[in-house]
C-alpha cells in the first residue's frame, strides 16, 4: 500500500514511542502538521518562538530521559533552532529536530524561506541530513532516533523537503534492524582496564571520585552511592553532576570548579588518585591546566573517546557508559583507608565553608535554602548567571530531585521554556524555575505557552537589575566599569554610572504586572521575611504559573571565585 511521506513520518514517531512533539508550523511544514491533526496519540505543543520550542523539548528530554522531538518550518523556523541545538549538543541531550524545507527542485535557488540548515548546524549537532529521496525517508528518521539516544546522546537534525513529504511510496521498512556502518556506539566496558583502575584506587591514600553529568544521564545514582559507601572515597561533583549522589551523603564534599567549594578544589589539587566518571574536564573545572591535580594518577571513564586525554592527560582511560562501568567497579570494590584524608578535607571546609557571610539585602542563599527545604523531589530548572551558580552551590539534592541547567553552552533564556518542557513531561511533579532578570526576558513570551499548556509552575526571578555575572567580572577585573550590564539604564542616565542607587529609573518590565497580563500570578518579595509566604501563595496556585520576583542587591557576588589562569584552589574568597 502506498503512503505519503507525512503518514510514514507519523508512523515512525509512534513506533518510537513519541507522544509529544514541540512544533511551530509554516508553509514548508504544513503537510506534516495536517497529518498530525488527526493523531490523538501525539500531542503537539505550540510555543511562541522556535527557540522557546527547542529549549522546552530540551527540558522535557532532560527531565524524562526520553528523546525530545521538534518540528519547525523552513528558513527562519529552522535558524531559530540553532542556539537550542548547540545548547543540547554541549550537554548531551537526545533531541530529534525536524525542519521543513523547500521542494527539492528549488533547493539552491534562494527560494522563499529557504536556508541550508544542514550546512549551518553541521558542527553543532551529532548528525544532520536532508532527505533527498522518498525511499530514504523512513530509514533516515529511524536512524535519527537511534543516533540521538545511543552512545553519547545528542541532537540530530533532519531536513524534510515539502515534495518528499507528499510523495507516495509502497516499500517503507519500519521494522528491520538498524545498522549504520560508520556509527557503532560502545556497549561494553573493558574489564581489564577496570581491574587496573580499581587496583590503583585500592592503594590510594588520598583518592577522590570526580563525578560529572554523564553519571546522571546514565541513571547511575544508586550504583555510585553504593560504590562511594563501600570504598569510603569522597565524592566531588561538577555543576552538571550535582545530584548524582545525595548532597547530604557523608561521602559528598561539594562542587568543583570556578565557583566550586574551596574544600572540593583543594581536595582535587592534593589528591593522589583522581577517579573521574562522566565529565569532560572542560575549562570551567580545571583552572590552570598545567597545575591541575599535578600529583595524581588520573583515571577517566567517559562514554566518548574524544573526551579522554583531551585537556588533561590521563593515566588510565576507559571508554564506557557510566552505569556499566560502575557496576563492573562494584564487583571489585574494597574499602580504602581514607579516614585521615576525609578529616583533612573537612578542615578545609571549616576553613572556608560555602556560605554567603555578609549578604547585602536578601540573601540568595536563604532563598535557595527555602526552595531546597520545600521542594525536594521536584525539578529545579535554572537559567544562566549568578543565580545559576548560587543554585549549584546551595541547592540540596536528595531522593529524585533534579537540577536542569545549560552548563556547556551557558544559554541565557533557557530556563523558562525548559521549565515548561519539564512540567509537560512531569505533570505530577513540582517544577521551579530560577532565573535572573536578564535571562527571564529572553524567552518571556513562553509564559503564553505555559498558559496554553495549563502548566502551573513557579518562576523565581532573582532581579538585581543587572546582567549579574558579567557585572561581577567587571567589579573584579574591570574596576567596576559597568559597560552595558545595567538593565535599568535609560538614555537620560549618566553613562558612567557605577552605582545602582536610589535615583535609578524604575525597572522595565514590572514583572508582577507582566505575569498578570499573561493570566499568571505575580508576587514581589523585598525581604527574607516574605519568602515563605510567597511560596505558600504560589503553591496554592494550581491554575497558572506564579512569578515570584525577588529583589536582590547587585552588590552580591558569587564566591568563592576561581580564575582560569591560576591553579584550581587559588580562589578569590572575599571581595
Amino acid at each position, binding site marked *: 500500500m502506498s503512503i505519503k511521506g507525512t503518514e510514514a513520518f507519523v508512523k515512525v514517531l509512534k513506533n518510537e514511542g513519541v507522544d509529544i512533539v514541540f512544533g511551530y508550523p509554516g508553509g514548508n511544514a504544513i503537510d506534516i502538521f495536517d497529518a498530525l491533526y488527526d493523531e490523538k496519540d501525539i500531542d503537539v505543543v505550540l510555543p511562541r518562538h522556535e527557540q522557546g520550542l527547542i529549549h522546552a523539548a530540551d527540558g522535557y528530554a532532560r527531565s524524562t530521559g526520553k528523546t525530545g522531538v521538534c518540528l519547525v518550518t523552513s528558513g527562519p523556523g529552522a535558524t531559530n533552532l540553532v542556539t537550542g541545538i548547540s545548547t543540547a549538543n554541549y550537554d548531551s541531550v537526545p533531541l530529534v529536530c525536524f525542519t521543513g524545507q523547500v521542494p527539492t527542485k528549488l533547493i539552491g535557488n534562494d527560494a522563499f524561506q529557504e536556508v541550508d540548515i*544542514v*550546512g549551518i548546524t*553541521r*558542527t553543532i549537532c*551529532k*548528525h544532520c*541530513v*536532508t532527505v*533527498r529521496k522518498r525511499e530514504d525517508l523512513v530509514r533516515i528518521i529511524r536512524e535519527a532516533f537511534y*543516533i540521538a539516544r545511543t552512545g553519547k546522546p545528542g541532537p540530530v537534525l533532519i531536513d524534510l523537503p515539502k515534495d518528499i513529504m507528499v510523495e507516495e511510496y509502497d516499500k517503507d521498512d519500519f521494522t528491520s534492524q538498524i545498522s*549504520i*556502518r*560508520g*556509527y557503532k556506539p560502545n556497549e561494553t566496558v573493558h574489564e581489564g582496564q577496570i581491574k587496573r583502575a580499581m587496583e590503583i584506587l585500592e592503594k590510594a591514600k588520598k583518592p577522590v571520585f570526580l563525578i560529572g553529568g554523564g553519571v546522571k544521564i546514565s541513571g547511575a545514582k544508586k550504583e555510585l552511592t553504593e560504590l562511594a559507601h563501600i570504598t569510603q572515597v569522597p565524592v566531588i561533583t561538577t555543576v552538571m553532576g550535582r545530584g548524582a549522589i545525595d548532597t547530604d551523603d557523608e561521602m559528598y564534599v561539594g562542587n568543583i570548579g570556578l565557583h566550586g567549594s574551596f574544600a572540593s578544589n583543594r581536595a582535587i589539587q592534593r589528591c593522589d588518585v583522581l577517579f573521574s566518571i562522566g565529565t569532560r574536564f572542560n575549562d570551567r573545572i580545571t583552572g590552570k591546566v598545567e597545575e591541575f591535580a599535578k600529583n595524581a594518577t588520573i583515571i577517566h571513564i567517559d562514554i*566518548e*573517546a*574524544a573526551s579522554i*586525554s*583531551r585537556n588533561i*592527560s590521563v593515566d588510565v582511560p576507559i571508554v564506557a557508559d557510566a552505569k556499566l562501568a560502575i557496576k563492573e567497579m562494584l564487583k571489585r570494590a574494597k574499602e580504602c583507608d581514607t579516614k585521615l584524608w576525609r578529616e583533612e578535607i573537612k578542615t578545609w571546609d571549616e576553613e572556608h565553608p560555602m556560605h554567603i557571610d555578609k549578604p547585602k539585602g536578601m540573601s540568595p542563599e536563604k532563598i535557595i535554602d527555602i526552595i531546597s527545604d520545600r521542594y525536594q523531589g521536584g525539578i529545579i530548572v535554572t537559567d544562566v548567571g549568578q543565580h545559576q551558580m548560587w543554585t549549584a552551590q546551595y541547592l540540596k539534592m536528595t531522593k529524585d530531585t533534579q537540577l536542569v541547567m545549560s552548563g556547556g553552552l551557558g544559554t541565557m533564556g533557557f530556563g523558562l521554556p525548559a521549565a515548561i518542557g519539564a512540567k509537560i513531561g512531569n505533570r505530577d511533579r513540582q517544577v521551579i524555575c530560577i532565573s535572573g532578570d536578564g535571562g527571564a526576558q529572553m524567552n518571556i513570551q513562553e509564559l503564553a505557552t505555559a498558559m496554553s499548556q495549563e502548566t502551573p509552575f513557579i518562576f523565581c526571578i532573582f532581579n538585581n537589575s543587572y546582567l549579574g555575572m558579567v557585572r561581577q567580572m567587571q567589579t573584579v577585573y574591570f574596576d567596576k566599569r559597568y559597560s552595558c550590564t545595567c538593565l535599568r539604564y535609560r538614555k537620560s542616565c549618566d553613562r558612567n554610572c557605577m552605582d545602582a542607587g536610589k535615583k535609578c529609573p524604575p525597572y522595565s518590565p514590572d514583572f508582577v504586572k507582566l505575569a498578570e497580563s499573561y493570566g499568571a500570578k505575580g508576587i514581589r518579595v523585598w525581604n527574607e521575611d516574605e519568602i515563605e509566604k510567597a511560596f505558600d501563595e504560589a503553591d496554592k496556585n494550581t491554575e497558572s504559573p506564579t512569578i515570584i520576583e525577588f529583589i536582590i542587591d547587585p552588590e552580591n557576588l558569587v564566591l568563592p571565585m576561581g580564575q582560569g589562569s591560576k591553579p584550581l584552589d587559588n580562589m578569590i574568597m572575599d571581595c
Partner: protein
Amino acid sequence: MEMRWLSLYVENEVGVLAKIAGLFSGKCYNLHSLTVGETEDVTISRMTLCVEGDDNTFEQIKKQLNCMVEVIKVIDLSGKSLHKKEVLYIKVKSLKDSDKAEIMRIAQVYDVKIADYGKDSILLECLQTENQNNNLINLITKSYHNVEVVRGGSVAIESISMK
C-alpha cells in the same frame, strides 16, 4: 611539527566533504592537504588527509573523525609503509627556443612527462612524491617566471610487499 597521514573511508554522500573540512576549520586543526575519490564500492569514498600537529592534537583529530556518523573507518598511516604520489601540472610559458630545450632536459633528468607543447610553452605532467614535486617547482620557478602550477595533494595506499 610533523606531517601525519590519515586515510578515511567515508559514506559517498552529499555534504560529507564539507563536514570533514568543517571539523578542521571549526577546531583549528591544520589541514595540509585532502584528496577524495570513489572506491571499488560506489557507496564509499576514500580520503587521504595530511594533517600537521603534535601527538596530542593528532590523537584528538582521529577521535573526532571517528565520532562522525559518515566516517566508516579511520586508518592512521603513521609508521606504515606506503605508496604515496601527487599529481602535478606545471605550465611554463613565454619560452624562447633555448628555454624550451632546457625544460625538456629537466623533464628527462627528473623523469616527468611532457604532456603538451606549444609555440612558446610546455606543460609538464608529474606523478611523484610531494617532496619531488616541491623540488621540481622550486627548480623551475627559480629560472622561469611565467609559470602556472596545479597540484592535487597526495593519495596514499599501504604497500603490499615493502616493510
